[in-house]
C-alpha cells in the first residue's frame, strides 16, 4: 500500500502547480525507494526508461524546417489564404480540421497532423485569420481560446480516430494482452470496429462545441 505514496506525490505536486519535471522525478525516486530498489537500480530505471521512450521526442525533429518556413512567413500566408474565404469562421475551420484529422487517423495516418507540423504553422494561424476577418481585431483572450481549441481539436481527432485502425498501438495492445493472458483469440478488426460508435460520438460532441466556438469568440470581442 505504501508504494501508492508516489502516486499521491504526483497528484499533490500537480495540484500545487509545482514544476512537473521536478514532481515526476521526485515521485519516481520515492516510489522506487519505497519498493526497495537500490540507488543504482533507480538510475538504471531512469536510463532505460529514457532510452526506451525516445520515439516521443522525435516529434521535435521537424522544428528546424518549421522554424525556417515561419521565418519566411508560413503563418502569415495561412492567414492571408483564409482572409479571402468568406463564410469560413474559426469554429468551422477547426471543425473541418477535426474531421480530416479523425478520418486520416482512422486509416492509420496519425503522422499527418500534430502540433509541430500542422497546428502551429498552419491551423492556428488560419483560425486566427478567420477571426481577424470576422472581428477586425482580436484580443489576448480570443487568441488564447483559439490556440487551446486548435490544440484540442488535434488531440481529440487523433485519439478517437486512430482506434478505428487495426494496426494501431492501442488495438494491438488489447488483442495482445487479452490473447496472452486469457488464451482468447480476439480479432483486431473486431476491436477496431467497436471503436467506431465512440468515434462518431466524439466527432458529434466536439464538432457541436466547435460550432458554438464562434459565438463564444464574438462575446469575448464585445
Amino acid at each position, binding site marked *: 500500500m505504501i508504494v501508492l505514496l508516489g502516486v499521491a506525490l504526483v497528484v499533490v505536486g500537480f495540484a500545487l502547480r509545482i514544476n512537473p519535471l521536478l514532481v515526476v522525478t521526485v515521485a519516481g525516486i520515492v516510489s522506487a525507494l519505497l519498493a526497495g530498489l537500490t540507488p543504482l537500480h533507480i538510475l538504471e530505471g531512469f536510463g532505460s526508461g529514457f532510452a526506451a521512450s525516445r520515439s516521443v521526442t522525435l516529434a521535435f525533429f521537424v522544428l528546424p524546417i518549421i522554424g525556417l518556413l515561419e521565418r519566411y512567413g508560413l503563418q502569415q500566408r495561412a492567414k492571408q489564404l483564409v482572409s479571402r474565404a468568406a463564410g469560413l469562421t474559426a469554429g468551422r475551420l477547426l471543425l473541418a480540421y477535426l474531421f480530416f484529422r479523425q478520418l486520416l487517423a482512422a486509416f492509420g495516418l496519425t503522422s499527418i497532423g500534430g502540433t509541430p507540423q500542422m497546428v502551429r504553422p498552419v491551423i492556428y494561424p488560419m483560425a486566427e485569420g478567420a477571426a481577424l476577418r470576422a472581428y477586425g481585431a482580436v484580443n489576448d483572450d480570443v487568441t488564447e481560446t483559439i490556440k487551446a481549441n486548435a490544440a484540442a481539436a488535434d488531440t481529440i481527432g487523433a485519439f478517437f480516430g486512430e482506434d478505428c485502425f487495426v494496426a494501431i498501438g492501442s488495438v494491438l495492445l488489447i488483442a495482445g494482452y487479452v490473447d496472452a493472458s486469457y488464451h482468447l483469440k480476439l480479432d483486431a478488426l473486431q*476491436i477496431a470496429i467497436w471503436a467506431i460508435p465512440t468515434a462518431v460520438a466524439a466527432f458529434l460532441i466536439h464538432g457541436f462545441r466547435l460550432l458554438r466556438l464562434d459565438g463564444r469568440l464574438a462575446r469575448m470581442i464585445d
Partner: protein
Amino acid sequence: MIGADWIYWLCGGFFFIAGVLIAYDRTHPKRWPTAAFWCLFGASLCAGTLVPAWLLGAAVIIMALLGGVGLTSRGNVRTTSDAEREASATRLRNLLFVPALTIPAVTVIVAVGGGRISIGGRAFLVPGSQTLVGLGVATIAALGVGWLLLRPKNPAIAFVEGRRLLEAIGWATLLPQMLATLGLLFTQAGVGTQVGAIMQHIVPEHSRFLAVLAYAVGMALFTIIMGNAFAAFPIMTAAVGWPILVQQMGANPAPMFAIGMLAGFCGTLCTPMAANFNLVPPALLEMKDKYGQIKTQIPTAIAIFAVNVCLMLIVPFR
C-alpha cells in the same frame, strides 16, 4: 534492415546544436545551465542504449533537475519581423506550403511503401519503426525542399529557427519521456497491482451497471494518474474487466475491452500527465495558460465518457 537509430542521432544532433548556439549567446539570461540542458539532452538521445543505463539515468536526472528547479530559461532569438514575414508571404505565396506538405506526404510513402519492401526475404525497414523512419526521411526531404525553394543565404539558419521553437517549448520537451519513465518505475514498484487489488475489493459483483461503471471509471481515473490508457488497461482488465464482466456476467470481450480502452482515452484528455498531448502543444503555441488545452478538452471528455458507459452497458451484453 533500416531501423530508427539514425533518426535519434540526427534529432540528438539538432538538440546538441541548439545547446551550442545557446552557449554562444551572450544575451541569454540563463546561458550556461540552459546550454548544458540541451547539450545533455542531445547527447542522451544519441547515446541511447550505447552507454550503461545508470550513466544515462544520471544524465536524465541532471537534466530533470536543471529544468525542474528553474535554472533554464528562454533566450531571445533574432528572427524576421512581422512586416518582413508578410512581405515574404506575399512574394512566395503557396510555395511556402510545399515543404510543409512534403512532411506528411513522404512520411506516408515511406511508412506504407517502405514497409512492404523486403530484400532477400528480410524486411527493408525494421518492423515497428516504419513510421519513425518515414518521419525522419520526410523531415530531411522537407528541409532539402525548403532550402531549394527559399534559398536562405545561410542554410544553417534553419537550426537557429529550430532552436527558437525548441526554446519556446523549453524543459517541457523532456516531460513526455520523464512521464514514460515514471510509468515504468510505478510498474516496477507494483503500483498497478496495488490499485488492482483495491478495485477488486470495492467492485460489487452482482450489479452489471456498477461493475461497468467501475471498469470505465477505473480506466479513466487510472489513466489520469498514469497519463496513459495503455498502462491502465492491463490493470483494470485483470481486476474488473475479465473476472467480473466477461467471466461472471458473460460480456462479449471485443467490444467491452475496445470501449473500455476508449473510456481510458477520455481520462487522457483531462490529465497533465499526458504531457506530449496536453502540455507540449500549449508550450509550442506559446499559450499563457499551460493548462488551457486541458480545460478546453474536459467537457468533451466527460460527454464522450458518458457515451462510452452507455455503449458498454448495451453492446457487449447483446
